């Protein structure tokens, strides 16, 4: 392993990243929908901030997939 901090993803890690992307997507939609109906400015401001935070999380997860893409083997090896 040339790079000690980055290794190919295990199937488990790949599944966790995929599940996390689904979670973040759901949170973005829920926060944006709730922000659009609230009449409380404090809550609206907080929810808009959460939308941005979850968008960042989503970016982080997608970047992690892309960074590990080239390390993934084309075939199952032992």
């Amino acid at each position, binding site marked *: 392993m040339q790079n000690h*901090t980055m290794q190919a993803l295990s199937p488990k*890690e790949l599944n*966790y990243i995929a599940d*996390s992307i689904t979670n973040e997507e759901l*949170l973005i939609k829920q926060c944006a929908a*709730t922000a659009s109906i609230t009449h409380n400015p*404090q809550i609206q401001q907080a929810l808009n901030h959460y939308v941005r935070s979850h968008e960042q*999380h989503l970016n982080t997860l997608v970047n992690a997939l892309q960074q*590990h893409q080239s390390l993934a083997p084309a075939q199952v090896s032992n």
Partner: protein
Amino acid sequence: MYSQSPSSNGSFMQEQDLLKSILADLRRTSREYTTATTEASCPMTRRMFTDLTNDTLRLQGELFNLMQQNNMYSVSSKALRQDVDKQIQSAQQAQQKCQQFIQEKNTQNSSYSQAPNVPHHQPNYGNPYYM
């Protein structure tokens, strides 16, 4: 909840219910990030999941405080003094048992090994100049 105030007419769900749902999802997501962290083998992936766990916990705490401030989250009832006292008592017993257990194991361990008659050797791999 079918008897809502007129202000909720026409909306898909009440604001408070939506916020509770977000809070529940933040709780679930932080749990899943914690599990993912403990099961990550790639150091970079572990680092990422650790950061996401911390950030999600922070967001969950912020939303909880905000809902509490706006009286949207009823604080659950308080544990009784007698129940707290009982738990303290059994916790102190557990602490004592642990200390006894550790002492027992330490004595067992030292009965197998003799006290060294030479000064303790300093391993050279632990040299701070190389760390």
